[in-house]
């Protein structure tokens, strides 16, 4: 009795190990193809394979990709995520060498179908195409920013914006060589009311900072 169950378990796991070895490469290839497609989507034309690098942040090690054309760096593809409605929203954000967000692509999200899941659709995502972070307030309109939130999915929209902000912070750190300050971006999508008001203040602060920066620029 025990013997036959043992034999079945043994044969079963042997079979599994076999299929695992067989499909290991295609699974890795599929994952790699997904990343590469995402990079190609979020950056202008580049040659060769983008170079993968990593950067240390207070939240752990984050990998990013450097794309170059004829030896010249044309942009960075950064993976960044923020907490959405039912889990993390994780994005590939392409930022060109002059600091413009070229495009974004959703790597994974588990938002509600028909509501938050619409963040993958062009109607929302295209707002982040060719976006100059210096000229746009990166926050949803409800928080005083320039981004139209998805109808009835403010939390997802905030998460998307926060992820883009995180990516920009990482980009700044890559370019300047410092540690990215992701505190503002990360706290925005929090669903806790207390944290929410804090996030609102933070958003207002960001807005204030931008305004201050603009004034400073005008004064120059």
């Amino acid at each position, binding site marked *: 009795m025990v013997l036959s169950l043992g034999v079945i*378990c043994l044969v*079963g*796991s042997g079979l*599994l190990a076999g299929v*695992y070895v067989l499909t290991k490469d295609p699974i890795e290839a599929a994952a790699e193809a997904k990343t590469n497609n995402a990079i190609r989507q979020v950056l202008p034309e580049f040659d060769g394979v983008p170079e993968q690098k990593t950067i240390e942040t207070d*939240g752990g090690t984050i990998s990013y990709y450097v794309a170059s054309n004829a030896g010249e760096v044309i942009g960075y593809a950064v993976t960044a*995520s*923020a*907490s*959405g*409605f*039912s*889990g*993390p929203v994780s994005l590939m954000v392409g930022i060109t060498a002059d600091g413009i967000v070229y495009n974004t692509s959703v790597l994974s999200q*588990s938002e509600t179908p028909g509501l938050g899941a619409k963040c993958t659709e062009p109607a929302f995502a295209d707002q982040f195409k060719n976006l100059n972070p210096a000229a746009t307030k990166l926050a949803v309109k409800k928080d005083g920013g320039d981004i139209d939130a998805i109808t009835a999915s403010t*939390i997802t929209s905030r998460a998307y914006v926060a992820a883009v902000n995180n990516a920009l912070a990482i980009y700044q750190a890559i370019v300047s060589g410092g540690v990215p300050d992701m505190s503002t971006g*990360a706290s925005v999508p*929090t*669903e*806790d009311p207390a*944290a929410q008001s804090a996030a609102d203040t933070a958003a207002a602060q960001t807005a204030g900072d931008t305004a201050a920066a603009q004034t400073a620029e005008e004064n120059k």
Partner: protein
Amino acid sequence: MEYLIIIISAIFVNNILLAQFLGCCPFLGVSNKLSTAVGMSGAVCFVITLSTLVTYLLQYYVLVPLHIEFMQTITFILVIAALVQMVEIILKKISPSLYQALGIFLPLITTNCAVLGIALIVVTKEFTFGGEPHMLNLAESVVYAFASSLGFGLAMILFAGLREQIALNKVPKPFRGIPIALVTASILAMAFMGFSGMV
């Protein structure tokens, strides 16, 4: 504070039955009577919490170190099946009265997808719970599993109460049985949607 968020989120906001559809078979199958619903919920609570504890340890102290994560589904379901058997035997010896109450539900629980579902969720999904996305640690996993099973119990008992009332009414013939139960479940799910966005 974080544990409170986990508990509220698992019981009300992401109710395992009404928002995640895990464990629908007992939800529709044994919810005719309030007393059976209570028994089933008790048994599920017990098994989910215990099996999540065991599968969590198994995942991080056996499967991951040995690099055989691909055996996850098969080992988890075997562990759950064995655990249910063991609980049944132990319960029979230690507390015959509790066995009387829960015993008949135990064999059904092995194939209750809520049990395997929660065991898999805690080791594969990243949670946020008002902070950075992260994988759950052991304490969080067990609290999440227990709270989820409480959510199962809550939905199950509410639903059984409603069905007992409906059974007294005249229902159009094609709606008798499962369809009217599904319509009731739909309204109950709608009520639970009121909690969404709370945490």
